[in-house]
């Protein structure tokens, strides 16, 4: 309530009385405002920093890693962490620190690619549905309903089993199953933006449909898409990890955080070799958490209406 009162107090006036001063460097572009709001959110900043560190580590894995990724050395099997093997070794004697570093590359890129894929599908379908409406909208929304009704993980498991587990299939399956939210968001945004008078104004000046969509609608619709893409990336990492843990995702010897954990399905490993599952599990948690924090910060920064 109070927020609305304050908004009203601030609304009727120009945001800056020095508007008449000709200084151009204090132009407050929408981008500046977003950055200012994001910066204020300390937790989101922490999330961004952690995420950045994880990304840098993943990129630099070949440089940092002390051993060969797949170097099997049976003499050094199942060793607990030591100064030589920071995270210990696995059942084939591979250095786990090395594999976790490389695993980050795979896990993060599966998340990124899957999320980008769903974004492309979701944005295109959402644009079509929201802009054209009528039967195109009906058909796309029905398809969306169907995909939403899928028992998500069950179908992903089924599909992975049938298509054969691999990195690419994992990306594909996750991408194909998660676009619905983006599609609905874009459609919803388009429906409400379509009502905006600035769209009518563009029409009234004779702007082409392409121009209206490209210049007036999309730039105003991307904020929630970006937010949900971040959050879906977090989900994608979780799903990849789950699939790989079940042996249906990324296949060894390529390491991912999920499949490094796979041996922990055996009670013996789970009980006796905590270093096999604790570090990758923890890293999945940390990376997903930091992505979610960034997403949450973006939500506050990009869409002040949603700011709670």
């Amino acid at each position, binding site marked *: 309530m109070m927020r609305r009162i304050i908004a009203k107090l601030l609304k009727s006036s120009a*945001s*800056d009385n020095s508007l008449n001063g000709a200084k151009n460097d204090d132009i407050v572009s929408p981008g500046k405002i977003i950055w200012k709001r994001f910066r204020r959110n300390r937790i989101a900043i922490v999330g961004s920093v952690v995420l950045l560190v994880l990304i840098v580590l993943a990129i630099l894995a070949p440089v940092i890693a002390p051993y060969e990724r797949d170097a099997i050395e049976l003499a050094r099997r199942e060793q607990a962490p030591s100064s030589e093997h920071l995270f210990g070794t696995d059942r084939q004697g591979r250095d786990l620190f090395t594999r976790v570093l490389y695993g980050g590359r795979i896990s993060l890129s599966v998340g990124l690619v899957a999320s980008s894929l769903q974004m492309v599908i979701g944005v295109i379908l959402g644009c079509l549905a929201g802009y054209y409406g009528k039967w195109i909208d009906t058909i796309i929304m029905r398809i969306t309903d169907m995909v939403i009704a899928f028992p998500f993980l069950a179908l992903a498991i089924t599909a992975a089993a049938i298509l054969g587990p691999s990195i690419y299939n994992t990306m594909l399956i996750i991408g194909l199953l998660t676009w619905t939210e983006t599609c609905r968001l874009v459609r919803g945004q388009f429906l409400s933006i379509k009502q905006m008078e600035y769209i009518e104004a563009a029409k009234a000046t*004779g702007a082409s449909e392409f121009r209206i969509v490209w*210049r007036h609608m999309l730039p105003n619709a991307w904020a929630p898409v970006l937010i949900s893409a971040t959050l879906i990336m977090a989900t994608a990492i979780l799903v990849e990890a789950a699939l790989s843990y079940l042996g249906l995702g990324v296949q060894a010897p390529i390491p991912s955080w999920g499949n490094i954990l796979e041996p922990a399905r055996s009670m013996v490993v789970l009980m006796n070799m905590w270093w096999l599952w604790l570090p990758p599990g923890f890293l999945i948690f940390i990376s997903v958490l930091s992505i979610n924090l960034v997403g949450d910060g973006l939500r506050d920064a990009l869409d002040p209406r949603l700011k709670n």
Partner: protein
Amino acid sequence: MTEPIVKLENVKKYFPIRGGVFSRVVGNIKAVDDISFSIQKGETLGLVGESGCGKSTLGRTILKLLDPTAGKVFYKDFDIFATQKEELRNLRREMQIIFQDPYSSLNPRLNVGEIVGECLEIHGIAYGREKQEKVESMLEVCGLAPHHRRRYPHEFSGGQRQRIGIARALTLNPDFIVADEPISSLDVSIQAQIVNLMEELQEKFGLTYLFISHDLSMVRHISDHVAVMYLGKIVEISGKKELYQNPLHPYTQALLSAVPVMDPDHKSKRIILRGDVPSPANPPQGCNFNPRCIYAEEHCRNEEPELRDVGSGHQVSCHLVEKM
């Protein structure tokens, strides 16, 4: 006698109502129902009515921003509803619109220069430096500073934003402007600024306005002719003076008497209308004003009145004009 620049013939705009299990069309909201009038060049026609009477829909239909259901609109010699895409795009240079909400009518992601100058690009009139200059001079004409070009809409107050909207509409040098409640979301002290600006611009560029508003006082101030709308129909249309001093339709009379007068000594007899405006989805039989009309007679309930001239261009749609 000046020539009409815009002429409406039996314009209709219905919105289908869907319902039932299969979302079939079960009826129509007759937002604009059989409207004819014309606007003289260089004049302002005020269009008044309460919310939901269809006045904004009419304004948008005239510009073909909404697809018409039936009827014809002539702009100069062009039959607007019959024009093809390309021709319509060219016609858009001459007909513009100013909106009600200075917040939703400016794209928040574009700066003022882009908002005002976009139409120059669209019609291939000016680009780059030349576009910039045109934008700057238009901003000045509308009471803003040239350097505002680089600012974003949210940095401006409501009144300033409305000036930006006007600048955008005028950049293409149009002849005819639909002003859809251009002042209703502004503060009282700012309303006068905008109306004065509109009057100045009219004089300077010879503009013709369709001024849509629910503010009867402002319409009295700015218009030459006034049309009163009720439930999708024009109930009365006349010269301003005539309409305000001698309103003939019972609805117009009630509407005018309902406006609070800023004068503690003012003691006029107020006509209080009964009930609410009926839903346009289900308008009453006969004269659509009859359920709220204190004079209503039997045939008002059965027979729809025609809009007819009662002398010197004063048109009223009421069976009982002669009796009153």
